[in-house]
């Protein structure tokens, strides 16, 4: 499942997508994110019959992802995003 967390407004699309078919719930993304955007869940709230743990973007932060991720996204010379780099299964992508 592609879980898209974020929003769209007049300035653009701001979504962080977690591919839950790839995610194994290891929690590495949560460990490296400086603003605690990710939360590891034992039960996927969007897929009740799943048994493995999974990462989600925690409740209130998904409506502020553009601002939350600012520190990792300088205008020029953007380094690899820590969350994307940390995820061994390549489950995370950002739309902006």
């Amino acid at each position: 499942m592609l879980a898209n967390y974020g929003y769209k407004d007049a300035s653009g699309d701001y979504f962080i997508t977690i591919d839950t078919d790839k995610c194994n719930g290891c929690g590495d993304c949560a460990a490296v994110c400086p603003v605690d955007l990710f939360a590891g869940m034992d039960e996927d709230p969007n897929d009740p019959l799943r048994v493995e743990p999974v990462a989600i973007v925690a409740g209130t932060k998904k409506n502020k992802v553009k601002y939350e991720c600012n520190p990792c996204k300088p205008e020029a010379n953007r380094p690899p995003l820590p969350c994307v780099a940390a995820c061994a299964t390549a489950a995370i992508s950002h739309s902006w």
Partner: protein
Amino acid sequence: MTEDKKEFWRWTESNWKNPDMEWKDAQFISVGIDVGSVSSQAVIMADGQVLAYGNMRTGSDSPNSARNALNFAMEALGDMPEDRMDYCIGTGYGRVNVPFADRTITEIACHARGANFIYGPNVRTVLDVGGQDIKAIQCDEKGKVTNFLMNDKCAAGTGRGMEVFADMLGVSIQEVGDRSFEFKGEEPPAVSSTCVVYAKSEAAGLLRMGWAREKVLAAYCKAMAERIYSLVERVGVKSEFAVTGGMAKNRGVMDRIMPLIGMDRLTTPWDTQIAGAVGAALFSHALCMKGKGRKK
């Protein structure tokens, strides 16, 4: 304005019992409760089939709304003791306020599962426009979510946004759909923003320019349709397409979305408002089958 005119969208509270089923015959009784910002539903299932449901307005107090919806469904059922329920799942915006639920599940999962039940296994794209959010979901033939997004950051494009706008124009919410087609001349372009604040000032300007209220409504409905479509487009539209939730009943917006979608939407004899609660009850049933029901 009568009480009736103040109703949000065109729906009335209702409860129903399946005349072909009896609770006494059931092995598992599973329950789903969907507490939305505008309406709350309770669905009672016997072995995975709908036995009874209740559909009511959400009051200011969510725990009571959940209880009232369940009581309303139980009323239709007549004589079933409440401890006959094996498992109950709460969903929706107010899902944390279902005190008697065994578990909560997001409305994303429940709407997909519910749409699969009420529209059939060919549904691949589900659009739900609620009072405060827009959900676009893709699912497989079992009703399992494969791709979703939910926009609840602002009121643009939601039932709440429409309500504020209708209020400003002095048009009752249930007349919005029809009146948005009752203007002379060509369909106007969409207002440039669905943001409630900007749209209100833009509308005031159009009225001053001499536009009929109906034409302003048309322009706003069109903007809502485009806004909602842009979110659906992000997850992608796959055939077949279905709509759940209150906005499904507003033709001012729906008739303007469908040409953008480019395919027909499925129809159903079921009340589209119960989709979320149906999904929750089906998950309850699935968990009962896995042995998670309450011990008697």
